[in-house]
């Protein structure tokens, strides 16, 4: 864990703000260090907590009080990497990808212990090979600490960092965590540019407070008594860090416009605000009843949500909690009005479908061992060589475009598919991931093995050329037809359980009305 207590940082802040105000006065675009863009991704299915209680209430009747609202649940084909990719894509929508210098992925549920998870995100985003990538892990504070570091790196002259946080935490059926957790991802781009928010100051403390723990390789958290966490964790540790941080940074508690405490337990944020003198109106919604606690992603998700709602000149206080506390205070800039056009959090929050099928979710998390049948026995062995040499096509959905005829195709080939001019060796890279497409043919297959039957798939044509046969995701009956507009999402294609490998590829999902760009 890094400490952010050196006095230089406050001086740096003053330097940047003065440059910022100079820019305003001169009427030129302001280049400031801070958060340049944000994005979020929340899986579409929202499991009703009442469904969990209906199944487990006979055993865990004490959780009845938590059986309100809904929690976001990732599909069988999602994990922290795929969710991170979608959040990152949302943040990059109006951003030049060539300007990204590094990718950081913060999560306590990284799929790989020794394969750069951020590296997979980098490939999926089709970023240049000359991009740094690193994973931030080990604590639900990973992302706030990472954000602190990213801002410091930017202040030191580093090029823009894409910081993504994602978590898909497994929980035992009948546990409190099952009720309160949610799956989500959020992304920030941090660097020098037209910042929508700049750092006012930061403060960190690290204390080995084991409110919950998960051993490496284990599936589930082991948690200690909630009353102790409330009193000594939130009531003492967080409150003290807040008081110290505000004093050190030199911001009056009453001047905080948005107070983000990513702790979904009822009343905790309100209690802290009261105690510190932060106004009750400043307390940000924790999305407890709509998403659930998304672990390491939660502070970033709530920050992105706050940035979407905030006007210029607002002070946002972000708390990170996990074996210590991170405090970051931001101030929004005039550029925030532009940044809000996308409203990625609001859009992904609204793109929801209520789900009462608790057993399906357990099956998708590997907690309910349904008979899959022999058709599920297809060996999914992935040769390392073929993935490596096809990584742009497989992970980045990069097709080819014939430089002679303009014919677009997927995948690339030595000789163009165009029957009128099958030119040889003329293909250039042509990314397809962000192109809309339309359904040419489709079916709902109840015979082939799918963890979420029936498996929808079909042929799609991309706007601007190119065609592929592809699986559909997030489809419901009556919402797919020839001509239906689709967009591409990064998902899990298959698991090789025998050798411990996840195969990723792209799928098509229907574009729904009101969806962000």
């Amino acid at each position: 864990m890094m400490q952010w207590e050196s006095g230089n940082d406050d001086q740096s802040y003053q330097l940047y703000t003065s440059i910022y105000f100079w820019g305003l006065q001169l009427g030129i675009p302001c280049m400031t260090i801070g958060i340049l863009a944000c994005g979020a991704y929340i899986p579409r299915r929202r499991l009703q907590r009442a469904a969990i209680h209906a199944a487990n209430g006979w055993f865990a009747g004490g959780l009845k009080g938590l059986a309100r609202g809904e929690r976001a649940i990732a599909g069988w084909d999602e994990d922290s990497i795929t969710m991170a990719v979608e959040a990152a894509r949302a943040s990059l929508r109006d951003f030049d990808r060539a300007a990204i210098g590094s990718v950081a992925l913060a999560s306590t549920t990284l799929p790989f212990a020794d394969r750069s998870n951020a590296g997979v995100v980098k490939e999926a985003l089709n970023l240049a090979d000359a991009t740094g990538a690193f994973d931030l892990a080990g604590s639900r504070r990973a992302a706030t600490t990472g954000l602190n570091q990213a801002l410091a790196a930017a202040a030191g002259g580093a090029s823009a960092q894409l910081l993504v946080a994602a978590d898909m935490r497994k929980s035992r059926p009948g546990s409190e965590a099952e009720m309160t957790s949610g799956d989500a991802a959020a992304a920030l781009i941090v660097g020098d540019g037209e910042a929508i928010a700049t750092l006012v100051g930061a403060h960190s403390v690290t204390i080995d407070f084991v409110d919950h723990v998960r051993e490496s390789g284990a599936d589930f958290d082991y948690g200690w008594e909630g009353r102790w966490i409330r009193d000594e964790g939130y009531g003492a540790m967080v409150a003290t860090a807040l008081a110290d941080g505000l004093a050190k940074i030199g911001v009056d508690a009453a001047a905080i416009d948005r107070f983000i405490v990513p702790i979904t337990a009822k009343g905790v944020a309100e209690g802290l605000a009261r105690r510190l003198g932060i106004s009750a109106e400043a307390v940000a919604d924790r999305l407890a009843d709509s998403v659930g606690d998304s672990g390491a992603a939660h502070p970033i998700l709530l920050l992105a949500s706050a940035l979407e709602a905030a006007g210029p000149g607002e002070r946002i206080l972000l708390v990170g909690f996990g074996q210590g506390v991170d405090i970051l205070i931001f101030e929004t800039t005039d550029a925030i009005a532009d940044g809000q056009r996308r409203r990625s959090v609001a859009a992904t929050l609204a793109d929801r479908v209520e789900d009462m099928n608790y057993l399906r979710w357990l099956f998708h998390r590997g907690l309910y061992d349904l008979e899959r049948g022999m058709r599920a026995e297809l060996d999914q062995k992935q040769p390392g060589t073929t993935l490596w040499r096809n990584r742009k096509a497989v992970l980045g959905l990069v097709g080819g475009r014939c430089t002679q005829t303009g014919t677009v195709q997927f995948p690339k080939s030595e000789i163009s598919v165009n029957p009128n001019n099958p030119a040889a060796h003329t293909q250039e890279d042509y990314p397809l991931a962000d192109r809309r497409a339309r359904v040419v043919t489709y079916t709902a297959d109840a015979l082939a093995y799918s963890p979420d039957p029936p498996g929808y798939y079909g042929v799609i044509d991309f706007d601007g050329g190119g065609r592929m046969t592809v699986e559909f995701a997030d489809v419901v009956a009556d919402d797919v037809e020839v001509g239906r507009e689709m967009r591409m999402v990064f998902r899990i294609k298959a698991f090789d359980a025998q050798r411990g490998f996840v195969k990723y590829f792209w799928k098509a999902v229907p574009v729904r009305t009101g969806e962000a760009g």
Partner: protein
Amino acid sequence: MARGIKDKVAILGMGCARFGERWADDAETLMVEAYEEAIADAGIETSEIDAAWLSVAFDAINIGPSGIPLATALRLRNIGVTKVENYCASGTEAFRGAVYAVASGAADIALALGVEKLKDTGYGGLPVRSRGTTFDMVGVTGSAPGNFAQLASAYRAAHGVGKADLKRAMAHVSVKSHANGAKNPKAHLRKPIDMDTVLNAPMIAEPLGLYDCCGVSDGAACAIVTTPEIARAFGKRDPVTVKALQISASNGWEAQQGGGWNGSYFHTTRIAAAKAYEEAGITRPREQISLMEVHDCFSVTELVTMEDLHISREGQGWKDVLDGLFDADGAIPCQIDGGLKCFGHPIGASGLRMIYENYLQLLGRAGPRQRTSLPSLALSHNLGGMPSQNVSAVAIIGTHDA
């Protein structure tokens, strides 16, 4: 176009094993069963066979990847035996090998045998298998019904046909084939079915229900071919000859070029059929073709194939189906033996099984299902792959004067 092989090759004899769930029999037994009928029909000795082709698709659960299982099962006399696979068109591919060998003069007598033991997989439908390491990263490993069901959505969109109308036409295809199969002792499924049964069956892959799908079975079929001259020397006064044999393979256009193929038909079948008609000298297929055995892996496949073979006009095939044009007593019967629908589809065998029925019908040897007016030109269509990427084979055989 090349001169083609019209009337250069005659069928000396054919045989077909009983198709079905042959739990007690190995591929060897099925091969020998088809072969014994064929060689008896041909009236020759094993030693007179100069070359052989074996078609098998699923070698992993069958008999291995070489020609040796055929050579061993039939105790061929150390002749060249080639194993071929071209998806579900493998049977016609083996036939092509044998026919081309005779047409070239390289062999006087050649044999083609197709066999498949599908009922050793442990489940219905085709075995789920890899299609190569690159495909497995980016392709869709759907079921066969799922791949072919997509024809229906595209056909509806292309021709403005309602869901219910198309479903009924598809159901008619299956009802007709079951009526035919019920008369065939070698068919696997021999029970007539009615429209309601088909329409109300469980959904397999939208909009294909259970009865829109062909059966799955074990089987084998065999052809022995030679020149018309040698056939006459063996006492075949009016031998059935090969009029055309065309195979067309997708090159990726349907699957990869946006805005081209609309998903509602088989690009390859249209090409193979046009070439076959030219090779056979057929200019008006709807009037000249007496009967057809087509690749009815699914009802919708048969329906669109009527158009791709240039029998029905584009967008009108579903009406011809409902009008009974392809019923056993219609103008151009299709699947008069019951088709894949009732025989099931042991991959390597199917193409040869189709030619076997056409051969019997041309010779008036089809028993209770014999077409009363003796056919003169019979077409078989054998398809492998999926609508967007496939191998389509068209074989036309006929009486020598046709």
